[in-house]
């Protein structure tokens, strides 16, 4: 293959089609008798109490924010890790400085109490 990514593109197409095949088989082979009791929301066998929207802890969003910053950092580290073998020690020190700055950020977030409670 000239372009390996074309192979991956074809893989994506077929990888999406393959799980759909049993779903189609199920659509034809399974019974289809909807009634309101079967379709009501599940709450351990009793009627639902309250609406299905609850106020979630905002802490989830803070974890997603911290994850975003560290995700970008690790993406920067990929080319560094790759090229590190062919470069002098100075390159390793530069990468270590990069990681240390962000570890300082993590420590700051920790001390400010932002990583408490899920």
């Amino acid at each position, binding site marked *: 293959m000239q372009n390996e990514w074309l192979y991956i593109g074809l893989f994506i197409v077929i990888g999406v089609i393959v799980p759909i095949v049993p779903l189609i088989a199920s659509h034809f082979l399974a019974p289809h008798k909807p009634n309101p009791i079967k379709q009501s929301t599940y709450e351990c066998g009793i009627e639902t109490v309250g609406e299905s929207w609850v106020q979630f802890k905002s802490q989830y*969003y803070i974890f997603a924010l911290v994850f975003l910053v560290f995700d970008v950092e690790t993406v920067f580290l990929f080319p560094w890790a790759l090229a590190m073998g062919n470069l002098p020690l100075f390159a390793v020190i*530069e990468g270590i400085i990069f990681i240390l700055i962000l570890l300082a950020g993590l420590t700051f977030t920790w001390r400010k109490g932002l990583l408490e409670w899920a």
Partner: protein
Amino acid sequence: MTPDQIIFLLCAALIVSSALMVVTTRNLVHAALWLVAALFGVAILFGLLQAGFLALVQVVIYIGAIAVLFIFAVMLTRREMRDKGPQVNQNWGIGAVLALLTFGGLAYILSSWDGFSSTAKAIPLGTDSLMMLGKALVSPDAFVLPFEVASILLLAALVGAVFIASASKD
């Protein structure tokens, strides 16, 4: 029409239509998912250009982190997931005219750019572009300063997030 061009046209159609759906759909979570489709289209474009690393970085950061952040934000703050009311306000006529003028101006400027008709230099076979990127990021006469400044920028983003979050907690 080479296969590359066909794939490019399909991909461009995907991106433009997903972007249109992002701004016109009434359901907020659907809008976030159409945004995921548009970003994935951009990743396909990178793959077409044989920039595999950038395609994967696009998926990891935009779809894996930023789209998840958007969806969290929508679900955590909105009780009502549908946009009620009219989709356009009364200035939509002037807005459409301005958009068309901007598009016309950009098309005119770009059409006189000679980059469209010349072919770029071919990358010599055997260059390991990823290794070159890695070396460029840490070599003192290339991009080491932007590399370190990027980490300071990320630190600033983290500190900003901390202050916003602690302000809202109190």
